[in-house]
């Protein structure tokens, strides 16, 4: 039975990573006003929000499955406190931090109007670091991290993410210069 939890841990981890990268790219394209003419900006924002929530849900399933796996060696403390894992402390730390940043991004989006725009934006931008943390966590700890498929996926995801970040930064600079 514990093998089922192990397979679930791996599968949900991969899917959560893909969803987080997808949500990040959509969000950056949306905030860079680079959403094209085919889909409305509202469509991009809606899908961005949904993928972010879905990524957090699969991250929760990933954590739950690893907790239920008796062979994982991960307890509640290791899952919520960074640096408490025994053998793979740093890899686990990145995963815990990524989870926190996803939580911040998702749970501050619902009461968005309660924050000032500046504060909310900085809180939301921590999710960019969160996706990077998640990628490092997957690379260091993932059982499938050394498979060719994973490496190609990681490269493609990283390329799209870097492109979207660059697009967002350039658009922000150009808007600031045009004012």
């Amino acid at each position, binding site marked *: 039975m514990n*093998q*089922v939890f*192990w*397979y*679930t841990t*791996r*599968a*949900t981890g*991969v*899917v959560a990573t*893909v*969803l987080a990268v*997808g949500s990040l790219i959509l969000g950056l394209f949306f905030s860079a006003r680079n959403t094209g003419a085919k*889909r*409305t*900006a*509202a*469509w*991009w*924002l*809606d*899908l961005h929000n*949904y*993928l972010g929530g*879905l990524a957090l849900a*699969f991250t929760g*399933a990933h954590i739950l499955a690893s907790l239920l796996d008796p*062979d994982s*060696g991960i307890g509640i403390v290791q899952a919520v406190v960074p640096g408490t894992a*025994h*053998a*793979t402390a740093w890899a686990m730390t990145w995963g815990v931090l990524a989870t926190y940043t996803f939580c911040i991004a998702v749970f501050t989006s619902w009461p968005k109007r309660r924050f000032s725009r500046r504060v909310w934006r900085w809180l939301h931008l921590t999710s960019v670091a969160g996706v990077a943390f998640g990628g490092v966590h997957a690379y260091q700890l993932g*059982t*499938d*991290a*050394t*498979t060719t498929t994973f490496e190609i996926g990681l490269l493609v995801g990283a390329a799209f993410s870097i492109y979207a970040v660059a697009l967002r930064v350039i658009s922000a600079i150009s808007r600031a210069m045009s004012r």
Partner: protein
Amino acid sequence: MPPPPPPTASRTPPSPARTKRRHPARSARIGALVVSCASTGGLGYLFASTSGSEAAAPAIAGLPAPLATTGVVTAPTQPATSAPVTSAATTAPAAVDPAATTATTSAPAAPPTTAAASGVFNGSVIDTRYGPIEVQVQITDGKLSEVAVLEYPSDDRKSRRINAEALPTLRTEALTAQAATVDTVSGATYTSNGYTQSLQSALDTARAAGVTVSA
């Protein structure tokens, strides 16, 4: 100067008959959910179906080659969670030659009664999460003189990298301790547990054949 355009996403006043708001990306949302769940199930199935595939384990620097291919006493296969085998009553006749340093070419003989003897013994194949592991021990004049690894998890590069570091450490510890009581190598828990169990079963098999290690 033209007036600024009105905001595109203005709030609509609540209507008396409040209708459920339709998400702009409703179809994409459903698609993402379906694809995510299907991917999780598909990946889980893929992992389960490929976990038993065995590949030839490459040689590791610092580890000896298999000590013998014939005339070796072998313990039966067992899962990682079960207790090590303590008897070799069902295995082939022992190939223990007290006069030689190894038992690779000796003819089957009755188990000797002397405590100090020599021989080569295979441990049980221990099925760990990442693959099977099997060790082989050489006992020379009552001393654990060598521990070789016949099989270890090597399906992916990560396993090979971890085991390339862990197995030489485990071998050194076993030879130093002259027993299967070795510490778990950090980051290689499954390999360490499987190695210890297989080593213990090999020593048990040797003891059952009359070859004991005097620490």
